[in-house]
């Protein structure tokens, strides 16, 4: 099982990630002079959430050929589910001091908690919702789309429409989820103050662990016989049907797993950045995820994670430096990679390394 899940590239990546998981908290909390500044810890945790989101998209796009342009929606739903718990954990410490209602509800003259907020005071319930809500949306959406054999560009367009519709819905104040301000001003999670370095370091470790788990689960799926069937669906869908596989069920399975993974990424993202708002549903966000995966190397899992980290890092550096050019830089990166690195950054690096290596079998 170990050999099946951990090939060379996965081994190297997970080892690097593990070293970071240990080094970052130690460098931030336990060393004099704080070689790892606190803002960097939060930033890196955010990158790892994006990396997990990228892996979830690669699972459906890279291996089953389902190009979702709406994966940001699953991420945002996971984020909102966690955000609702964090809001309830504020309790009476809000600006208005209402024992039950979050500030924005007091402001909007709510007299009771809407029914769908019930239960979110319980952390485990919230965690369950983090996977169930995106999973359920993916299930309903996928069931309708795959059963009607919607594929290719048409599927991409309706996933994009899905996230757009959700964005508009979440912008509305009447929905009871904070309107365009979203959910914010969180105080703590499970009693740990979100403003402290140790909580931030803890979130970083959780993000790294979730990314590791996401990679291993994805790898388990893609190296199984089901993974091969998915590649079959990607290559020749009707052939797969005539062999006797009900393709819609297989697509639905990975789509739901992938959506849940994206939801987990969003749930960790919310306490890390301290806010979740409807902007996360914006179509542009979902398209950016596709760019991460393409840039890192579609169908490689590890490449998707690396792509997300590279782009997010570039975004941080560039927007701090000359914000106006960020979108051009992103578009430019995408074009250059598509033209010159058909297998993404990871593919290019591996090809270069293989040239210097005595001939040995390579893992695919």
């Amino acid at each position, binding site marked *: 099982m170990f050999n099946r899940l951990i090939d060379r590239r996965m081994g190297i990546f997970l080892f690097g990630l593990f070293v970071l998981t240990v080094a970052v908290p130690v460098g931030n909390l336990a060393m004099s002079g704080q070689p790892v500044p606190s803002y960097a810890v939060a930033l890196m945790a955010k990158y790892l959430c994006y990396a997990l989101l990228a892996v979830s998209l690669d699972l459906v796009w890279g291996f089953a050929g389902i190009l979702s342009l709406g994966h940001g929606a699953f991420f945002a739903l996971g984020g909102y589910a966690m955000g609702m718990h964090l809001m309830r954990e504020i309790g009476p410490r809000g600006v208005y001091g209402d024992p039950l209602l979050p500030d924005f509800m007091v402001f909007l003259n709510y007299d009771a908690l809407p029914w769908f907020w019930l239960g979110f005071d319980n952390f485990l319930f919230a965690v369950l919702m983090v996977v169930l809500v995106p999973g359920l949306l993916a299930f309903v959406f996928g069931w309708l789309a795959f059963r009607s054999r919607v594929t290719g560009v048409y599927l991409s367009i309706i996933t994009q429409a899905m996230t757009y519709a959700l964005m508009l819905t979440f912008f509305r104040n009447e929905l009871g989820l904070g309107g365009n301000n979203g959910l914010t001003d969180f105080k703590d999670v499970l009693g740990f103050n979100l403003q402290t370095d140790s909580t931030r370091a803890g979130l970083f470790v959780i993000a790294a662990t979730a990314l590791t788990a996401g990679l291993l689960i994805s790898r388990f799926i893609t190296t199984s*016989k089901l993974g091969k*069937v998915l590649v079959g669906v990607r*290559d020749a869908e009707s052939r797969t*049907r*005539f062999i006797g596989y009900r393709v819609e*069920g*297989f697509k639905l*399975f990975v789509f739901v797993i992938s959506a849940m993974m994206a939801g987990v990424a969003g749930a960790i993202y919310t306490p890390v950045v301290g806010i979740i708002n409807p902007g996360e549903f914006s179509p542009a966000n979902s398209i950016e995820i596709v760019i991460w995966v393409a840039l890192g190397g579609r169908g490689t899992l590890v490449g998707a994670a690396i792509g997300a980290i590279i782009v997010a890092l570039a975004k941080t550096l560039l927007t701090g430096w000359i914000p106006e050019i960020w979108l051009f830089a992103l578009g430019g990166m995408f074009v250059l990679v598509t033209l010159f690195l058909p297998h993404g950054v990871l593919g290019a690096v591996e090809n270069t390394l293989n040239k210097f290596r005595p001939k040995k079998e390579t893992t695919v």
Partner: protein
Amino acid sequence: MTSQLYLSGVSCSFDGFKAINNLSMVIQKGELHAVIGPNGAGKTTMMDIITGKTRPDEGEVFWNETVDLTKIDEAGSAQLGIGRKFQKPTVFETLTVEDNIAIALKADRGVLATLFDRQTKKQAKKITELLELVRLNDDRARMAADLSHGQKQWLEIGMLLAQDPELLLVDEPAAGMTDAETMRTADLLKSIAGERSVVVVEHDMEFVRALNCKVTVLHQGSVLAEGTLDHVSAMPEVIEVYLGR
């Protein structure tokens, strides 16, 4: 003896054009049966109807005299035991030759069963046997995309046999093959028949002659003639259809 496949009065039209017109045909168990006919005669459409890809407008299609094939989908027909080779060879290009056979191998087709499947020794042996039969054992680790056209045809036949079907529908298997390969394909199909039923669509008359079996001539969506190849090719209406196009 019960029939393997029974078509009666089947019609199917696309935008008013009758691709299949009151077609009736019976395939016996274990029979090798060739279907010929000019381009557009409806041969491929007939296979689409049998495998649930296309629904007929009217008529009956029965499997083993009991199962109504007009009510099932492609995956359902495969699970019943119908294997189909496409006119255009279709294999999984980015899987290895071996994996192409492995996922076609008869097994539980459920999602979870497939996820947790682990290949048994028996299955591994079966895969090697099939690869040897279609002469691709030396290429088993190659990507299917790298095979020649003829080799892809053979791989697809291998995948078909891996499903362990009762009936094989083989659409133009000899296209793109050398003469020697064509004759080997004919021999292979003949050796398969008996144990399984085989329906072959082909334009190559040398190939059909080599099959040495019952022939049905299709024209404009219905049966024009039936019998041995010598018998049908001597019939004036068949000659006219073939020369008149």
